[in-house]
């Protein structure tokens, strides 16, 4: 049988719904998943299992780790700091130097390009 490439399908419905998802909402989803991925990679880099993280943090219930790594969790700053400390990673960047270039460089998800009208 001749090898066939998969058919490419563009969903108009997904396009329509995607256009109604604000850039800010997309960013929130992406960041939560990236944070979860970073935490998971750090656990593996330390040759830990999830229970090792649980123990290091003095937490009781393993399900909290599952929730953290699911990419859907809305972390508190306290929890992020605790994770930074036990895993030796940075999840919150406070060292970024703030100037007008930084503000312009980072995409503003609240406002349109005129910097006045909200998206």
């Amino acid at each position, binding site marked *: 049988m001749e090898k066939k490439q998969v058919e*490419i*399908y*563009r*969903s108009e419905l997904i396009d329509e*719904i*995607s256009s109604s998802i604000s850039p800010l909402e*997309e960013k929130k989803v992406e960041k939560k998943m990236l944070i979860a991925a970073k935490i*998971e990679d750090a656990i593996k880099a330390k040759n830990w299992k999830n229970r090792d993280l649980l123990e290091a943090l003095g937490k009781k219930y393993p399900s909290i780790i599952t929730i953290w790594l699911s*990419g*859907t969790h809305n972390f508190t700053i306290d929890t992020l700091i605790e994770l930074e400390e036990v895993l030796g990673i940075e999840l919150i960047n406070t060292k970024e130097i703030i100037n007008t270039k930084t503000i312009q460089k980072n995409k503003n998800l609240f406002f349109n390009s005129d910097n006045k009208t909200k998206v």
Partner: protein
Amino acid sequence: MKYRLVKISNLSGNKASVYSVLLNGEQETIFDKFVKENIMTFEEEVKNIIARLKTIGKSTGIRDSFVKPNEGTLGDGVCALYDNPDKKLRLYCIKYGTQLILVGGGGQKNVRTLQEDDKLKKENYFLRKLSAQITERIKDKEIEYINNYLDFEGDLEFQDDDEND
């Protein structure tokens, strides 16, 4: 019933490909149908699912921790994308490594086991069957991974009573 695998271009990216199933004679995939069935009642959840799939395709790939595993038979890769306790929807998928996910259908989960819900059972069992068919074809080299495990190529058309050649 005949059907084929398709790659959803507006969800796929260089971290993962998102596939679904197109039934012969239909214009929408089974994932499109899931979206249509649930967008009115669960708008925010559906949007969130689409945003997550886009992130999987473009940024993170598929991690085991992003899905709820073991939603099918042992080792068949059938999983559920969404399983926060406070979420109402369940979307069934088949995960192939970290770079290929096949999204199917699903629905509202408000029962203890999926077998108690005809809709969820139908969607889940369809993916179990499809997973078995794909696995068989991979074993027989009728389907192979290409593009560094981002894609399938080969015989990607199936039917309900499909048997090995």
